[in-house]
């Protein structure tokens, strides 16, 4: 049996019934990483020894009759999550040697169940990017076609699932950074409602938009992992004190009379043919299962990318002020005087995209421009949020593409940042509105590249999108297709 191909729930059954040990499963995944990662570069750090030790501890725990859903399950984390005692780089030279002093809450919750950490995953530096090319540790490649990007910024989180290098992973999503890579790599990626999962110990990019979520092989695993990480955390003042429902109970194959909105602004002329075909096919599937479709309008969609890149860069310029070469991170050794030391350390530590966004954000917040850019963008954000509120008066969920095209080629968009930003057009509005969205595998392109389908729910409506996604998954086998590596 190829243990590295299993889902969380499949491996859990084998572990619980003692047919397989966590040591065996962990060994299988580490061997798979060893055999494939020179071609994918999904991992920044592989923690083989620590993983084997954690697997032994998990096996003892299972031996004593205690087997929680993640006990002994080998997982990996985007390198944006702090992991106590293990290097956390955020794919930046700035944090090349940073050893986290504590665990991010989301990971702490998984660790409590006995999950086994295989290592830390590649990403765009400080989560800024849509292709995972902006990494100080080299670009991650798409396991379905290694000449193509895996998406970003959580590219390693999705590529590791597609390359069968981890059973499940965590990513973060600020403008589509979980859903878009999941779409490009044929995985399930869930961005929960803002406030549903603690951001404590997650390196901050744009704090009013950042949210943690699972990347998995199927919808059942996404529900399981969300269950583990969701909930109020006193250490994150924006995490919401709302009861966490039983997400697995929502996994029912039933979309009868579910009202699904199709935002007309997302189904524009000139949409990539393969993407259009995948959407048509998905709509036909869900309709045959009893769902009702209604056209809706999100009239401010065209303003979302501009709005996002002002708000996100402004917040980033503030958040990244902490990297000054004093308390942690890189320090330029040659510089004279405090200010020069800081400016030089930041120049050496940050890559081009991070510098560009800090510059943009600083400009948007600077004296004389604040009202014209940042405040204006925050007002437009209100209009975008209202669009969703209005749509959700008519329908239960929305169905849209995740990305305008399948995965593009490595290097195709690096010279033109604006073109890169526009590839996030269908995912960004969900972050601005603060609500939840899931990407699930739909019909692949004619060339066999994965294409994701996005289901968007009301705030804290994760159960509804999980149920619809689960129902769709029951009628298709695209999520079972595997990249030939």
């Amino acid at each position, binding site marked *: 049996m190829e243990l590295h191909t299993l889902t969380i729930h499949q491996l859990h059954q084998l572990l619980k019934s003692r047919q397989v040990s966590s040591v065996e499963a962990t060994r299988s995944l580490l061997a798979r990483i060893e055999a494939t990662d020179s071609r994918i570069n999904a991992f920044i750090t592989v923690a083989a020894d620590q993983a084997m030790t954690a697997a032994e501890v998990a096996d003892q725990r299972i031996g004593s009759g205690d087997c929680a859903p993640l006990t002994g399950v080998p997982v990996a984390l985007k390198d944006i999550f702090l992991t106590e005692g293990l290097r956390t780089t955020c794919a930046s030279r700035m944090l090349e040697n940073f050893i986290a002093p504590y665990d991010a809450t989301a990971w702490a919750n998984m660790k409590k169940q006995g999950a086994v950490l295989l290592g830390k995953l590649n990403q765009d530096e400080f989560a800024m990017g849509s292709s995972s090319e902006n990494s100080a540790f080299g670009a991650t490649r798409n396991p379905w076609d290694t000449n193509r990007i895996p998406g970003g910024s959580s590219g390693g989180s999705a590529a590791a699932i597609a390359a069968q290098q981890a059973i499940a992973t965590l990513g973060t999503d600020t403008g589509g950074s979980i859903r878009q890579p999941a779409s490009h790599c044929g995985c399930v990626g869930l961005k929960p409602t803002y406030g549903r999962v603690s951001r404590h110990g997650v390196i901050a990019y744009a704090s009013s938009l950042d949210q943690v979520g699972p990347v998995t092989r199927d919808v059942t695993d996404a529900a399981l992992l969300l269950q583990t990480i969701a909930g109020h955390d006193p250490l994150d003042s924006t995490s919401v004190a709302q009861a966490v429902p039983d997400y697995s109970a929502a996994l029912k194959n039933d979309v009868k009379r579910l009202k699904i909105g199709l935002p007309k602004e997302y189904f524009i002329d000139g949409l990539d043919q393969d993407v259009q075909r995948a959407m048509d096919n998905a709509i036909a599937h869900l309709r045959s299962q009893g769902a009702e479709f209604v056209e809706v309008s999100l009239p401010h969609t065209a303003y979302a990318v501009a709005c996002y890149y002002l708000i996100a860069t402004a917040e980033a310029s503030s958040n990244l002020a902490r990297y000054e070469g004093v308390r942690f991170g890189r320090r330029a050794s040659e510089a004279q*005087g*405090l200010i020069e030391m800081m400016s030089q350390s*930041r120049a050496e530590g940050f890559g081009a995209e991070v510098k560009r966004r800090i510059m943009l954000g600083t400009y948007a917040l600077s004296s004389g421009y604040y009202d014209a850019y940042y405040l204006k963008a925050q007002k437009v954000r209100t209009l975008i949020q209202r669009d969703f509120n209005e749509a959700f008066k008519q329908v239960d969920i929305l169905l849209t593409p995740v990305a305008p095209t399948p995965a593009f080629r490595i290097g195709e968009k690096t010279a033109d940042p604006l073109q890169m930003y526009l590839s996030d057009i269908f995912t960004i509005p969900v972050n601005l509105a603060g609500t939840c969205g899931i990407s699930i595998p739909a019909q692949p392109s004619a060339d066999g590249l994965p294409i994701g389908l996005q289901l968007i729910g009301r705030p804290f409506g994760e159960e509804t999108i999980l149920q619809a996604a689960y129902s769709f998954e029951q009628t298709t086998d695209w999520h079972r297709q595997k990249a030939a590596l």
Partner: protein
Amino acid sequence: MSITCTEIDHVARLARLALSDAEKELFTSQMSAILSYAETLNGLDTDGISPTSRAVPVENAFRADAVSASIGTDQALANAPDRVDSFFRVPPVIE
């Protein structure tokens, strides 16, 4: 919207970023393009619209004013590029 080299210098100083001449030149053209695109927002009438600073309404989160466990001085200093005793050490601020 086009940005001048002087503005780039000013913003880089505010952001404490020592940019190379090549970077300044590149960012001048790229930021001009991105900010021109951002100006599409000016086509929207937002008079009377209140700004959204966070997606989900939350109240101030207070905790009890009580001492609790922390990571401690040694761990807090463990990642410092330079330290002396229980302090971060920095280059001279005043010559």
